């Protein structure tokens, strides 16, 4: 009994009789195993030379863009705003992480070779660097968020765009102000050691997605979603909108900074001019096409849009124009993007399999009896159970409602 009650509140699968559901520990175990399998397979393929250096580079970039798209999704899909300065956070994160690692290499006794061979000191420095990068970006997110989040819609878009431009100008010119070389100025930061590889990119991506997922599943995440759906209603229900908007914004900036740190180690140079409006738009396109509010959508579109230019080298001239046209068409004909705010779940899929293709709503709901314990209340509770079962529709509806609010 308690097991089914627990399932009802935790996983959203309602307690119904005859429906075999997975317990939470089981779900985590399955997912963890899948992750480990992919990690091991990937690492073997790379070490064995099946996957070339070129392809490994592209995979790392896919990982970076996945984090960027999902982190932007926090602020656009989940919070319902349109910040246009995401590339600025990426730039701050990249610079801080790279500068940190480069400066601390001597102190910690790590050489560039160590990153390739993977000594513990190198791994430790990498972790510190990435966190430092994310942290710096988060601070910027806080500074930007406080004034920006007072505004709505278009104003927020322009102000975040402005902030990203300010970041760019600062990165280009701060050396003159400081008197010593920090960021390398306009030509950029060069000579960054290649501390990014498949293994640590994969792990960082998994951890980031895990953190974002659990945040959104928690009370905090629900508060953020409620702000998207109807800010004034949320405020009147006691949700501190300023706090949660800032939280979402800062989280979005943090992960963008992490991605920036990975980017610096993958490419080896950081040039401020490349992190302007255009880059922010590229990431926005990924989020919009994948579906704002859908993590899976962001992941898929980030992957596809990173691989596509490589595959379509022959027609790369037209790539940008095609992106623009696709963006316009998607907005006119399918504004919710590829997947809307639908999200995938392994556990739901497995449950569907073990229940021979039947979904929870195909069963007689007994949650009513279990939860209330009284026959008279069963009728009142039954709608609750059924609404709990139709998890997709409320999601879609609230998604639609969000669009009409501004």
């Amino acid at each position, binding site marked *: 009994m308690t097991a089914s009650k627990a399932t009802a509140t935790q996983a959203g699968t309602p307690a119904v009789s005859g429906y075999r559901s997975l317990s939470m520990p089981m779900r985590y175990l399955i997912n963890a195993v899948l992750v480990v399998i992919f990690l091991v397979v990937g690492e073997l393929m790379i070490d064995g030379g099946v996957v070339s250096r070129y392809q490994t580079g592209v995979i790392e970039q896919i990982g970076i863009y996945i984090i960027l798209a999902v982190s932007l999704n926090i602020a656009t899909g989940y919070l*319902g705003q*349109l910040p246009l300065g995401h590339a600025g956070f990426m730039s701050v994160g990249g610079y801080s992480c790279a500068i940190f690692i480069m400066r601390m290499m001597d102190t910690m006794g790590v050489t560039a070779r160590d990153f390739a061979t993977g000594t513990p000191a190198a791994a430790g420095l990498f972790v510190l660097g990435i966190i430092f990068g994310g942290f710096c970006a988060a601070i910027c997110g806080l500074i930007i968020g406080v*004034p920006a989040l*007072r*505004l709505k*819609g*278009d*104003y927020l*878009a*322009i*102000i975040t*765009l*402005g*902030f990203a*431009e*300010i970041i760019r*100008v*600062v990165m*280009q*010119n701060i050396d*003159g102000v400081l008197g010593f070389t920090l960021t390398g100025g306009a030509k950029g930061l060069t000579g960054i050691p290649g501390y990014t590889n498949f293994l640590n990119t994969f792990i960082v991506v998994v951890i980031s997605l895990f953190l974002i997922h659990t945040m959104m599943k928690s009370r905090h995440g629900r508060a953020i979603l409620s702000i998207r759906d109807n800010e*004034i209603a949320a405020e009147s229900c006691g949700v501190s909108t300023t706090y949660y908007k800032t939280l979402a914004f800062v989280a979005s900036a943090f992960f963008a900074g992490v991605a920036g740190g990975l980017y610096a180690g993958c490419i080896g140079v950081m040039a401020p001019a490349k992190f302007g*409006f255009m880059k922010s*738009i590229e990431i*926005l396109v990924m989020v*919009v096409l994948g579906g704002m509010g859908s993590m899976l959508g962001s992941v898929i579109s980030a992957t596809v849009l990173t691989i596509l230019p490589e595959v379509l080298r022959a027609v790369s*001239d*037209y790539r*940008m*124009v095609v*992106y*623009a*046209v696709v*963006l*316009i068409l998607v*907005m*006119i004909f399918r*504004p919710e993007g590829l997947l809307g705010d639908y999200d995938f779940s392994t556990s739901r899929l497995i449950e569907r399999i073990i229940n021979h293709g039947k979904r929870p709503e195909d069963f007689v709901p007994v949650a009513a009896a279990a939860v209330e314990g009284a026959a008279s209340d069963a009728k009142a509770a039954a709608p609750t159970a059924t609404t709990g079962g139709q998890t997709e529709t409320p999601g879609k509806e609230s998604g639609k409602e*969000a*669009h*009409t*609010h*501004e």
Partner: protein
Amino acid sequence: MTFLTQVLNGLQLGSIYALVALGYTMVYGIILLLNFAHGDIIMVGAYISWIVMSQLGLSPALAIVLSIVGCAGLGVLIDKVAYQPLREAPRMSLLITAIGVSYFLENGAQLVFGADAKVVPEYFDLPNLSVGGVGLSANAIITIVVTAVSTVLLTILVQKTKLGKAMRAVSEDMGAARLMGINVNNTISFTFAVGSALAGIGAVLYSMAYSQATPTMGIMLGTKAFVAAVLGGIGSIPGAVIGGLLVGFAEVFVSAIGLSVWQDAVVFLLLIIVLVVRPTGILGRPMTEKV
């Protein structure tokens, strides 16, 4: 002496921003859309001038007319194709579509014309004037005069004509305007035409002053003009002019004291300060939100 020259520089730059800001503010005032593509319409206008004068060898007067008409036409086309289907859609979709249009114009131009700058020939051979030993460019004077005249004409259009009345009605309440028998879509298209024509004039003035056309010239110009429009109070015509001049002076001032690398940052900082202190801008009206 240098101070006077700098003031004139500021007036010239500010006038161009003011003209572009006028176009922005008109479109925003009526359909609450930040038309990202506005700056790129200017870019198209500059290229039209280049084609007409440099490639086809026709007269400068024709180039001016075609640029302005071309821009107006482009603005209406964009509205019909990209924005009209989204009249009832949420603002975010509209904003993203505007970004898409802007992207399309920039990359399309790069594809067609190449990334290298094209030189727009001088429209007229203007003498360089000199007042008390200070070099005065005739360009600057023409820019300031044209902007002033355009502002006056625009104000007359909006306040005194029937079409202007329709524009004001639609911007106040689209539904009510429709009930009053105003053809909302046509009014909006007309607003786009006027706003884009102003952008076309801006393109001509810009080409007179800086004589080069590149595919990405519209981005910064458009963004700063938007800053100007917001500064002055979006939806307000005199506000746009004041905002434009402010931004122009800020840039020139920052350059003059030797910090020109920070000029973009200063302009955006100005925007941020204004938005935080007085979100509706200098001359804007506060908007209340109904729950």
